Structure formats: C-alpha cells, structure tokens
C-alpha cells in the first residue's frame, strides 16, 4: 500500500489493493494503467542523419549494390516486408527484427522519401527545419512547442528525456522540462528536516519573484519553478516495474521512463526521445554488421520493448511513436565505409492506432539525368512526401487539434494515411 497515494488508491479501487499483494509488480501497474487514457505522442529522433537506405533496403535495385559495394546489406539478409505501391520489394535491416515484429502486427507505418525541397545537408539547419516545420524560416518556434502552447496549464505536458534543447520543443509560453533520469530529479539541501523545508520554501518564493521587466531572469526562474512543480510527479515513476526487460542502454532507459510515466498517468502529452550516432561518415560496416547494425539494434530492440510493454499494459492504443532524422545520406558510399550528408530520408510511425504499411515509393538509384527520384546529379534521394503532411496527420488525426493553426498552413495534401 505504501506506494499508493490516497488519490491513486481511490482511482484504482480495490483491484489494485488486492493485486499489490497477490500479483507481480507489473500487474499492479496494469491495474493502475486503466486510469491513464489520454493520448500521447512519443517523438523518436535519430540524431545525425539516418541512412534511410540502410534502414529500409531496396534489395533488388542493382544500383544499391553497385554504389555501395562495401556497406550494402546483402539481399539474403534483409528482413522482407513486401513491396511498396510501385512494386519495389523492400526489406528492413537485419538487426530490425523488433520492427519486423511490429510491422507484421500491422502497427508500423514507414513513409519513404520524407523530406522537403532543397534539403539542407547541414545537421543544424536540418534539425531546425524539421523542428519548426518551416524550411523558409527555421529560426522560429517549434511545431511541438506551438502545439503545447495551445494546451497550456501543465508544466509536464511535454517531457524531454534528453538534456539537449530542441527547436521542435520551443514554445512561446511553454518550456518543456528536460528530465533525463528521474532518479536524480530531486531536490537537495545542505540541511535536513524543517530547515531543508524552510530553505526549499524560500527557494520557491525567490524563483517566483521575477517580474515581466526581467524576462531572462524569469526564464531561469521558470525552469526552477517547473522543477519544484514537477518533482513529486516525476518521483512517482522511479519505482516503475515494467512488464518487459528493456535493453540496457540510454535509449532503452529513456523509453522505459516514458512507459512509466504513461502507465502512471502523469498527464504528459508529448515525449521527446533521441538516440545518436547516426552521422555515419565512416564505419557503417558491411555484410549487415558493424556500426550501423549496432544503431539498428538499439533502435529496433528498444522500440519493440516499449511497444510490448505498452501493449501488455493495455496502453498501446493511447500511444503514437513518430520517428524522424534531419536528412538521409548520400547514395554512394565514401571511402570510409560510410556515407556523407544527403537529402530525402524516411519517417516511421508506430502505435495501436497506426495503419501499418509502406507508404510512398522507393527511389530508383540509377544516376541518370532523367531520373526524377534523385537530385544533386544523382547523388542524393529526392523527397516525395512533405514531412509537414505527416505532422499534419499527427496533429489532426491523433492529437485532435487543427494542424493549419499549428503549422501555419494547410499541409494535409498528400499526407500518407498512417493513422
């Protein structure tokens, strides 16, 4: 009983009370999860520019093999998931068995050649463009920040599991807390007992003192206030018992934390989870192994654990994962078993409400001048689906808001029907 607050006990009722003595801990959380019904979005950012052609392999395209003699995934190793609407057979990277499982359950949507015109090959500008959904002016507010601005009131409406700040999460009024490890998200004092409480209360009063004439101080103080306001709720996820074992890496830990807060029903609507290392200029590996395979193992295993955990807790239907990266990579490999910065990439969506499948058509990798699926003299894949149309689907179809207001325009045309 001790881990339940009075409110939680009243909400969950006798079933939870009974289970806490009779059942494994994760079943307790399943019982508690019944109260957590709000929809949430989990953004998965693959930092560095994911090589989409290694994630979803066009294993019958001879130019895939001739242009990537060292790093191409052998056709016999890809995890076949059928063909796209143009009839081109495609397969997942061999380390993505987790995603193949989800695909086979009809809950993974892959959007090929997602991007925008004149793709920036800069990490930083590219990330800002995906973050603002505004290629012409990528220095403004983020698309998720604007969404969170539209549902004010809860400092935990957004949760950044990394300690980097992303433009996507930048709002006018909201500031998304960055909470990497709930275990250290607690307040320390040189004193104990009443003296520590006195000090904490004074700290709260100091942090609430900045007026509108001191906006920069107010910004810092807001971070402090949001820490004070969220400490107790965040602490409630620390003892979460998952129904599956998550991979022992940063991505797995972050996803477990997200699952914990979804299950505990703390009310967060948008989560940001990232994993890095995708700037694979060298050492991508060959024969389906090496550096890129490790990245795929991290992604596939982590997402499958998260998917299964939520499914076990009956919360998969409330969750949408949306994956992106700032650009795709060059088609031809470089001399270091790697690939340099390119253009069109891919997006993925996973969740209980996702209409699984392969959306869009694969590029033809033959670098002839008349090949409109390529750009930059055949060097890069050109985009087909405007990434903003996918955002529009998520905002309209999942978060139940008006995408034209959030995105500053109507980008619904051409949106893949992923939800």
């Amino acid at each position: 009983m001790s881990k339940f607050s009075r409110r939680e006990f009243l909400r969950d009722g006798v079933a939870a009370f009974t289970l806490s003595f009779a059942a494994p801990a994760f079943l307790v959380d399943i019982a508690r999860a019944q109260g957590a019904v709000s929809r949430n979005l989990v953004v998965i950012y693959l930092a560095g520019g994911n090589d989409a052609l290694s994630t979803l392999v066009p294993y019958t395209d001879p130019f895939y093999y001739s242009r990537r003699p060292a790093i191409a995934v052998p056709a016999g190793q890809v995890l076949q998931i059928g063909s796209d609407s143009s009839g081109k057979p495609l397969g997942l990277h061999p380390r993505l068995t987790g995603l193949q499982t989800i695909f086979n359950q009809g809950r993974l949507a892959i959007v090929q050649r997602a991007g925008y015109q004149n793709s920036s090959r800069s990490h930083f500008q590219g990330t800002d463009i995906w973050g603002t959904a505004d290629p012409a002016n990528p220095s403004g507010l983020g698309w998720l920040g604007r969404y969170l601005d539209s549902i004010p009131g809860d400092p935990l409406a957004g949760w950044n599991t990394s300690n980097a700040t992303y433009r996507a999460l930048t709002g006018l009024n909201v500031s998304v807390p960055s909470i990497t490890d709930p275990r250290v998200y607690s307040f320390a004092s040189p004193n104990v007992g009443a003296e520590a409480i006195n000090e904490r209360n004074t700290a709260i009063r100091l942090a609430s003192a900045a007026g509108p004439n001191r906006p920069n101080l107010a910004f810092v103080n807001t971070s402090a206030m949001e820490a004070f306001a969220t400490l107790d709720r965040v602490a409630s996820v620390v003892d979460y018992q998952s129904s599956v074992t998550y991979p022992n890496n940063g991505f797995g830990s972050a996803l477990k934390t997200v699952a914990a807060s979804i299950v505990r029903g703390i009310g967060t609507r948008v989560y940001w989870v990232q994993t890095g290392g995708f700037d694979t200029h060298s050492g991508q590996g060959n024969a389906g192994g090496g550096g890129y395979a490790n990245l795929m193992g991290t992604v596939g295993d982590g997402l499958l654990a998260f998917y299964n955990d939520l499914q076990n807790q009956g919360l998969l239907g409330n969750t949408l994962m949306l994956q992106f990266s700032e650009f795709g990579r060059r088609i031809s490999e470089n001399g270091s078993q790697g690939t340099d910065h390119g253009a069109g990439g891919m997006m993925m969506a996973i969740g209980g409400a996702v209409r699984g499948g392969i959306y869009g058509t694969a590029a033809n990798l033959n670098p002839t001048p008349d090949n409109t699926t390529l750009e930059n003299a055949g060097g890069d894949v050109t985009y087909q689906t405007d990434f903003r149309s996918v955002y529009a689907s998520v905002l309209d179809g999942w978060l139940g808001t008006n995408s034209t207001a959030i995105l500053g325009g109507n980008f619904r045309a051409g949106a893949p029907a992923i939800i």
Partner: protein
Amino acid sequence: MRSGDALLDHLFRRVGFGASAADLQAVAGMSYNAAVDYFVDFDKQPDDVDTKVGLPDSVAITTRGQFSPNTNIEDARQRWLFRMVHTRRPLQEKMALFWHNHFGVGYTKVAGTVGGVLGTKMMATKGGELPGPQGHYELLRQGALGKFRDLLIEVAKDPAMLVFLDGRTNTKAKPQENFGREVMELFTWGLGHYTESDVYAAARVFSGWNLRNVPGTIANDPAAYQEFIYNAAQHDVAAKTFSFPISGGSNTIPARAMAAGMQDGIDLLTSLANHPDTARRLAGKLWNYFVSDLDAPDPAFVDGVTNVYIQSDTAMRPVLRYILNSRWFTNPGNFNARYSWPAEFVIRTIKEIGWAGFSVDTARVPLTNMGQTLFEPPNVAGWQLGRAWFGTGAMLARMNFAAAVASNQKFNLARSFGATERAQPDRVLNGMLQRLTPAPYTTAEMNEMLTYLTTGGAWTGNDAQMNAKAPGLARLVAGSGEYQFV
C-alpha cells in the same frame, strides 16, 4: 568574491570564472586597462597551475589508482576543472573553452575509433609528457589567443579532428566530405557562403590529410600514438574549382605535383581564415561569449572586431584587448547579461563558496546533468548556448550542485562569519553577498532571504545556527536565478 568595483567583478566573471581572494590580490591596485592587459597578456604569468595539484590549499582531485590525466578521460576532465579553479591565466582556459565549443570535437567518437587510452591522449595529453603530439584541448589552449589562421591549420592536422570528422580516411579515390563541409559551415564563415559542389571540392583538397600510426609494444601502451601525415599518394592532384575566389584570386586551386599537394589545404584554410565573413562570424560568437547573449551583436561591434582581426592578420590577442576595452564590454547594462555555461557556474560556485576538502571530481556528473560534459560537446557545432542551458533538469542539477558544495563547506562557511556579522542576520546576508556574486536582488528577494535566516527559532548567530543557516543561505544564493548569469 567581490572586489568592490563592479566593472572589475564583471571582468573576472567574463575572462575567468569569478574571483577568489588570491585572484583579487593579483590585480589589486591596477587600473581597469592594466587589469585587462594582465588577463590578455597571460603568458606573462607562469603556466604553473598543474604544480598545484595535490597541494593542501588547492581544490582536491579524486584518484582511482594513479592520477592519469593524459590517458584517462575522467582524470583529464578533473585536470581541466582544476585548472579553471586555480589558473593564474584564466583567459587562457576561458578561450580554450570557447574554442572547444567552436571546434566541437567529442571524446566518445574518438575513443570509439582508437580506444580509451589513445582517445584521451588525442583529446587531452599535455605536450611532452608522453610520446606523440599534444592533445586537442592542449592545442586549443596553446593557440588560445594566437592567430586564428594558425589555429585552424593546426586543428585541421590535429589527430582528434582527423578521427572525429573522418579526415583520416580521406583519399583521392573516395573523398570524405565531413571535414570539408564543417570547416566552411561551422569553423569559418558559415552557411550561405558555399555550395554543395564546394563541399565536394573541399573534400578533395584535404584528400591525403591522414594519420600515421605509431604502435606501442603492449596493449593500451601510453607510448603509442597517431600523428598527422600528408599522404601524397592519396592526394587528388587535379585542380579544384570553387564558387568563390581563393584568397581573393582565382576560384581554382591549381593542379599540383603530388609532393606539393598539401598546399591545397593550406590555401583553402588560409583563404577561409583571412576572409572578413569568417571574422564577422567569430565576432558574433565572441559577442555572445564576452559581451551579451541577451542582445544580438551590435553591428558596430562586429565591424570593429572584424577590422582588428583583419589588421592583426587574424591574431586573437588584439581582438580580445579590443573587446575588453570596448564600450560594449564596459557598459554596465551588459553586466550579468549572459547565461552562464555549466562549467562557469560550477567553477564560480567552488571558488566563491570554498574548496577546502572538496574534490572537483564531485562536479563531473552534475556537469553532465547540467548539459556540459567537458570533452563531449553534443556534436561538432558545440553546445547550444543561452537559454538552452536552462532546461528544468539542468536547473535542478545546478541547484543541487550548489547544495553539494554548500554542504561540503558547511563549517568553513559558518566559521567565516565573525562575531560582528553574526550579531545580526542582515549582516550575515550582506557578508554572503560579498562572498558570492549574483546579479542584484530586489528588496523583496533580500527580505525573503532574511526571513529564511530568522525562520525556525530566534536569531542568535551561535555556531549551531550558523552551521545550518550559512550553508542554507549559500545554496539559496548559488541556486537562485540571479546567480545563473555572468
């Protein structure tokens, strides 16, 4: 601690990491201009900070076995933090940090490629202490206020950079674009000054700028190293044409004999370093670092810095002297007008609250939680600055680090207040605000802190009360919003 002169306090926060009593002593009696010269001409002070490691009046380091800052990255981090606390050349460390952010090389990728021992050597080994070239950060430290052109060329040949941006694999058959792109986008003039075909051409320019491996005799041999080599056989000797003139002349770097081909890279780096647009970009970053990151750079400041930079043939020492004596730097409106970086916050907290018996190692994990792991910028563009430092978790980590130092220094803090100060709580508050240097508080905030001092029992100022209230107050100040600005 405060000097009594707000401009000098400002100078200490910006060119250094705040002032200890010894730091104030070093500039006592100097005019402002003389103090600027003292900091800028730092090579007049001995570079003896490392000899203070282990001395009883120094901040401590934590050893796991032997202290090995040349081969163990955690110890390398400790050495840098130690230097920030005790250096007599604060501007040197401050500029090394600036360049570390500018060039954005991270340990993890380097160590992932060459292993932890050699990776640490590449990042941080001190010149002459082990066979092989000095580490990346030492190079930044040596070139801190030298000519930017020289620094850029040295960094292009730096083993850590050649691993981090893959130049080690750049060959004529398979040019590697990574360094060629970032040298234009991030290290010099920035986006908008080059095209994709320039990236291709730059990659070819640096083909053959590789590494030579000098293996050791045992596993993880600290004597093993890698060093820059111009690999003539792997250099693309054909002409390279750009969309911009090279050093004001032709757009083409001419075909050269294989043996002379290294000059291609020198030509491109020289052209980029000397270009006024590079000066303007650096000027903007220097404005944000030294003057303000609350306001955009004043165009007149950018022009002024650019002129000095060009006239001084890219030398940074005259640039810094110009900035620190400028009306923008000395304008009181720009005091406390920059969000502190985590390293600045941590070091100032240590210097101002105290360090007797405190180890800089205690700061390592909190720094990561604040978003700044030394030798590990998030990517080649460096850290996101300004407000980006102040996520909720990061702010909590700052408050908790203040608690860790205040708790560690509990008795020293309490004992530092004499009988006269202890007699009245407002004197204790004033004394604390001489020791710690936050931006000014409002009267209401001062009253909140006085209320804190007198909550929980009548004011006596006795040892028991001071042992609780002095560290509590120090934590409140160092954890307050006002203290997060420099």
